[in-house]
Every structure is written in structure tokens, then in C-alpha cells.
């Protein structure tokens, strides 16, 4: 974004600052700060955080694509909605409890906020699917895509209204203590980092279990394989599609919540950085192999790492270029994505 310095970039700048020379046994061969082990660890940690967020968001894209074969451009707006809803519920709860700004609320506030955001976004995702996408089940895919863009525009501009979320960035109240759990060299591993990564991992493992070990998951895979045949085999296709949307939207809400948690300040709903976040998550889904749940997780991590490492070690200004260049290279070399199967078109 023009003139934008996200907390992530600031973090990268901080981690790149020169470390005092006193500790070094051999000052003459002191590597430049960028090549120190701490920097590497710090970058790794950042990549893991960003990557798990991308993965969570990518799952929504990949699930919808797998079943309906269209790019749900409104997905990133659900992430924003999740972030803003968590902000509003968290603020309301903290006010209700009568806490002063510096105080940390009890442990159950975080999970409660997450749950509320996930349920609310699930309901909204369901509504969107029923009203906007279901009438278009047989329409050309381009139409569905334009509808998705329409939904996205609608959500952005509604969110921007003064009495909804407004046009100014706001900060989420502090929900976790800022304490450092573990320190390796100059790298602080905070409770927050563990919570973000942990929540993402738990949700992904849950989804993995749902898709590969339950009846519903089998139905979802069947619908994704062949909608018509699945319908003929007695699978309630419409219900499965709705459930897919609900799951994707609640994962997006979780992504929004974790985003708000790790970067505190949340930008206005129509900010272009949100669309870029959505695009990168989508790129992650494609790189991993679209329609493939494990591919989305892998792709999310890969894209997050690529972005953060490129930013740290090559040129911070070009971080978006790495992501999109990786996309083009992967698609040209392995069009089905890294974990995806190449589809052969039959006549």
C-alpha cells in the first residue's frame, strides 16, 4: 500500500537493528545484522504467524472453489467483518466488565469473542450463499464471479457507513498479557504468538478431521468431485454447499479475529490492504493446489514464509511481487498447484 507501514514491517525493521557488538567473540567477522541467527529466528516466527493466518483464510477460498468452482471474491470481506465484529464485541465485553484500558480481562473473554465472531460470520456467509449465489447455480461462472464482486462491494461500502464500522481504523482492546514466555537471543516469543499459531493449528486440525473423518466431510468431498452424481447418490447438495459456506466464513472470522489480535489496529472495511490480504490468501490456496484442503494449509505457510523472508532478506518494498511472481511460476510449472493434481480435459 502507498505510504503504509504495517506493524509487521515495523517489526521487521526492529528485528533488523544492529545488535551490540560486546557479545561477539570475533568482531572482525561480525556478519551484517540481517544474517544473524536471531534475525533468522524472528523471520521464521513472523512467517509462521502470517502463514497460519493466510492458511486459515485460504481454506475458505479453497473449499468454495472445490465445490462451486468459482473464486469467492467476497471472502476477504468476511475476514474484515470477523475482525470488526471481534473488535466490537471485545470492546463491549471489556466495557461491561468495567476494566481500565491497561487491565487484562479474564481468560474466557478471548474465546468468547472468537466464538461470537465465528457464529455471526457463519450466519452471514449462509445468508449470502442463499441470496446471492444459490440462484446462480446453473449460470456461467463469470456471472457468479461478478456477483461475488458485487457482494464484496456491498459489504465494503456498508461497513464503511458511519453507523456501521465507520471509515477510521480502530484498535481492539488488549485481551492477552504481553508477557514473554521464551526468549532465544533477541527473539521474544510472546503468549500472543503462541495463541495465534495455536488457534490456527487447532482450527485446521479440526477441519482436517471434519473433511476426512466424518460423514459430512465425505459428502463434501463427493460434492466437490462431481455435483450431479453426488446429488443422484442422495447427498443433499444444497445443504452441503451451505455448510461449506458456513465453515469457510467462520474460519475467515477466526482469521479476522487473530489478525485483529496480532496487529491490534484494524483498518476500515474498504481499505485496499484487506483486498490484498484476500488476494494473497487466494494465491496461497492456488499455490497449494486449489480445492485441496491440505494444499491450502501448506500454501498459506509457504506464501507467508516467502513474503516475510523476501521482505527481510531481499527488498521489503517488493513483498507483494514475490507472492504474485511465485504464483505465476507455480502455475506455469505445475498448473494444478504444488499439492494439486493436474486435471486433464476430456472431450
Amino acid at each position, binding site marked *: 500500500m502507498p505510504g503504509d507501514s504495517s506493524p509487521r514491517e515495523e517489526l521487521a525493521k526492529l528485528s533488523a537493528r544492529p545488535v551490540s557488538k560486546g557479545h561477539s567473540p570475533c568482531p572482525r567477522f561480525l556478519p551484517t545484522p540481517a544474517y544473524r541467527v536471531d534475525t533468522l529466528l524472528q523471520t521464521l516466527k513472523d512467517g509462521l504467524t502470517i502463514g497460519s493466518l493466510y492458511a486459515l483464510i485460504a481454506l475458505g477460498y479453497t473449499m468454495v472453489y472445490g465445490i462451486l468452482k468459482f473464486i469467492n471474491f467476497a471472502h476477504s470481506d468476511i475476514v474484515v467483518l470477523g475482525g470488526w465484529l471481534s473488535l466490537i464485541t471485545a470492546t463491549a465485553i471489556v466495557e461491561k466488565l468495567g476494566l481500565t484500558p491497561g487491565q487484562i480481562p479474564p481468560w474466557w473473554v478471548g474465546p468468547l469473542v472468537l466464538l461470537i465472531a465465528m457464529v455471526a460470520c457463519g450466519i452471514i456467509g449462509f445468508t449470502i450463499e442463499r441470496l446471492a449465489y444459490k440462484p446462480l447455480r446453473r449460470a456461467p461462472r*463469470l*456471472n457468479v464471479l*461478478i456477483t461475488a464482486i458485487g457482494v464484496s462491494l*456491498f459489504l465494503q461500502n456498508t461497513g464503511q457507513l458511519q453507523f456501521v464500522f465507520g471509515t477510521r481504523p480502530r484498535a481492539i482492546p488488549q485481551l492477552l498479557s504481553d508477557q514473554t514466555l521464551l526468549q532465544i537471543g533477541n527473539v521474544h516469543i510472546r503468549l500472543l504468538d503462541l495463541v495465534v499459531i495455536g488457534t490456527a493449528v487447532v482450527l485446521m486440525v479440526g477441519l482436517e478431521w471434519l473433511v476426512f473423518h466424518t460423514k459430512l466431510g465425505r459428502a463434501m468431498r463427493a460434492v466437490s468431485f462431481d455435483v450431479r452424481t453426488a446429488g443422484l447418490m442422495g447427498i443433499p447438495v444444497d445443504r452441503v454447499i451451505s455448510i461449506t459456506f458456513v465453515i469457510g466464513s467462520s474460519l475467515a472470522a477466526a482469521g479476522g479475529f487473530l489478525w485483529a489480535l496480532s496487529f491490534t489496529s484494524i483498518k476500515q472495511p474498504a481499505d*485496499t490492504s484487506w483486498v490484498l490480504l484476500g488476494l494473497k490468501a487466494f494465491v496461497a490456496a492456488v499455490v497449494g493446489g486449489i480445492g485441496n484442503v491440505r494444499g491450502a494449509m501448506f500454501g498459506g505457510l509457504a506464501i507467508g514464509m516467502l513474503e516475510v523472508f523476501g521482505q527481510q532478506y531481499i527488498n521489503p518494498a517488493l513483498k507483494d511481487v514475490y507472492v504474485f511472481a511465485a504464483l505465476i511460476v507455480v502455475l506455469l510449472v505445475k498448473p494444478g498447484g504444488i499439492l494439486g493434481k493436474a486435471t486433464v480435459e476430456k472431450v
Partner: protein
Amino acid sequence: MASLQDRAAQFKPAPMGGAWRALWPLAFALIVGVLMQLVLRPNIDAYSSTQILNIGIAIILAVSLTIVNGFTGQFSIGHAGFLAVGGYVAGSLAYYGSFAFFGSGAAKLGMLSGLYGAPAGAPVFTGGEILFFVSLLAGGLISALLGVAVGLPSLRLRGDYLAIVTLGFGEIVRVLIQQTPQVLMSKEAIAEAPAWKVPLSVGGSLGFGNVPKYTSHFWVYAAVVITLIFAYRLKQSSTGRALLSIREDEIAAEAMGVRTTYYKVWGFVIAAFFAGIAGGLYAHTLGISLSPVDAGFQKSFDIIIMVVLGGLGSISGAAIAAAIVTYLPELLRTPETLEKFAVVGIPLLIVGFAMLGMAGRRSSEAELRSGRDRRALPRVIIGLGAVIVGLSALAFVAKRFNINLGEYRLIIYALALIVMMITRPQGLLGVRELWDGALYRPLRDFFAPRSGGRGA
């Protein structure tokens, strides 16, 4: 017995006939441009004249994307990348070229340039305009070269994957433009900077607003006429039929001997050229500061919306939709204008329903496909009337309850888009053209005597 070659020779057009065919569109474009600039423009206010200019540029963009998305059926969602490349190349050439040739970066307006016309006593034609014209062409050509680069992945990729690559292309263009150094503002600064860096100094994320402002109704509408005639001729030509065959079924086309890869890349190149020209015109428009955002996906989506709304593959549909999409959000800004539209909308509705009643029986599938749909015209009229009446009602309600409609205009636009996609998925005109008879054929069929059986 004449050989095939002899017979083919008989069909060759006369040499002068070819020249006439090549030149009349240019002459026509010049006439339309001059009329727009010297007759229409002095008689309208500044606001409308900006709107009309923007509509012209949008038409060029939409029609150029129609060549890729509509004719060839390749799904490109990075079209704004070409717009930005054309705009930046043309802008940089014109700006730094002006310094090199005329000693300053200001526009040297002739009689036909400038959004609000040239100052009194301006010469008919200036050197600056030649420079502007050359930079426009250069922008288009560089953009077309990039079209080759983007078209080549279509060797391997189909459908959505190609779409994602084009999207990545647009984003990469955007980020790369963001990295460019600041604009050099004076002759001294240009002399000091290393020569290779001068044309690249286009302002990065701050935007490039110093481009000399040559664009006028003359230039834009001359380009619109040429684009429309080009697209029309392309659609009729053998190249165009090859493109259309790829859209209908790529595998079948290949089996019939169409060099699909070759034509797909051509489709991209042609579309990129016209988008680059549109970008050049946009960059030179008064009040516009070209910025990296113009290469981004949001701009691309705007163009796609026009193409899909107009009907994929319809040149006239894309042009009409470009006008609507550009003008509608502006219209919602001023509810007073909307109310006046009700006067037009209600008679339209009545006429449409009357025609529907007269057209009688439901149109069959075959009719719809062949374009001989007796009810197409009434439907279009009813749709138009309903939209206008609906908008006017909205404006009335807004005025009654003192709601600022301008604040909600993009929400209304988004809802209209969704409703349109659900209720009329094929867009305004489908794959037909205005001149195919979407307008006059139903009338002709209506008055023509009914032939028995299956119909003609």
C-alpha cells in the same frame, strides 16, 4: 476451365477500393472527433464534459477487454495493468519529451486539444500534439508487447488459472510502478539525473500528475470510433471467427485446424494495445493524477463488470454498459437529475408492456438462440423503464426522508449488479449487437407476415 488461383484473383478487391476501405474509418473518426470537440463540447457544462470524456475512455477499455473476454473467451482480470502501462509510458514520453523539445513540461494546446478547449488564438495544430500522438501510440505498442508476455502463459493455462495469472500481472505492475523515483520537475533536475533514470521517474506511489493535459473530446472520441470499427471488423474477419471458435470450444477449434495458441496471444495483444491507448488518453486528462492504483484489481474489476453487464462478446453491449457503469454512480450523487428521469421511464414502461402484449406467445428457445426473439425489444424497454423508474423512486424517497443518496450510491450499485446478474445473466445484449437486429429485428418480425411451420 479456370484454376482456383485464377478464380481467387477475381475476388481480389481493386487497389483503390482497399485504400478506401482502410481510410474511411480514419476520416470518419476525425469528423466525429472534430464534431465532438468543436460542436458538442462548447455547449455543455464542465461537469458533463468530464463525464462524457470518462465515458469515452471507459468505452475503449470495455471494448478492448471484450476482444479477450468476449470474443476469445479467455478470462483476463488484469486489464488495468495494460491501462497503467500504456498510461505511464505515454505520460512519461510526453512529459520528458516536452522538456526535450519545448523546454518545459506544459502542454502546447492546439485547437483540438484540452478538456476545456484551447485558449483563444491557439494554432490549429502544434508540435506538442504530434508528440502526444506519438506517445499514445508508443504506450499502446509497449502495452501490446506486454500483452504477448501475458498471452504466452495461455499456452499452458486455461480458465480460472489464466485469470489468476493475469491478476498477478496487474498486481506486479502496480507494485513495480510504486517503486519508481519521484517526478523530475525542472529542466535542471532532468539534466542532473542519469539519462536512463529520467523516463523512469514517474512518481511512484505519489502519482504522476504532471503529464501535459492534451486529452480532449476530439482525441477520445476519434479513438472510440477507431476502436469500435476495429472491433467490428475483427469480429467479421477470419481472425475474429478463429477467436470466436476458441470461445465456443477450444478443443473443437483446435481439431478443426485453428491455431488456438497463436490466436489467443493475438487476442491479448490487440486488447492490450487498445487498453494502452485508453491509458495514454487517461493519463493526459485534466484533473487526473495517474497512480499505481490504476493498475490494481479494482480498476480491472470495473472493466470486467462493464463487459459482463453488456453481454460477453457484444461490442455495442460493452460500449453501452461502459457508459452506464461510468455514469450511474455519478447519477446517484445528484438525485434531482434522477427525478427528471421518471418522465422518460414511465412512458418507456407502458410502451414495453404494450409491445409485450402484442408480441403474444412466449419466445421459444430456438428464437432466443437465433436472435429472432419477438419479445426481446419489449423486454429491453421494460427493463430500462423499470430501472429508471426504480431509481427515480429511490431519489424521491431519499429526498422525502432527507437521506443523502450519494453516501449509499456504491451500495445501491453493488445491489443492482447482483440483481442484474441473477435476473439477466447474459447481460444487456447477450452475444448480439445492436446492429444485429436486437432493436430492429423484433420490429421487422412483428410486422412481417407470419410464415407457416418453423418460420424462416
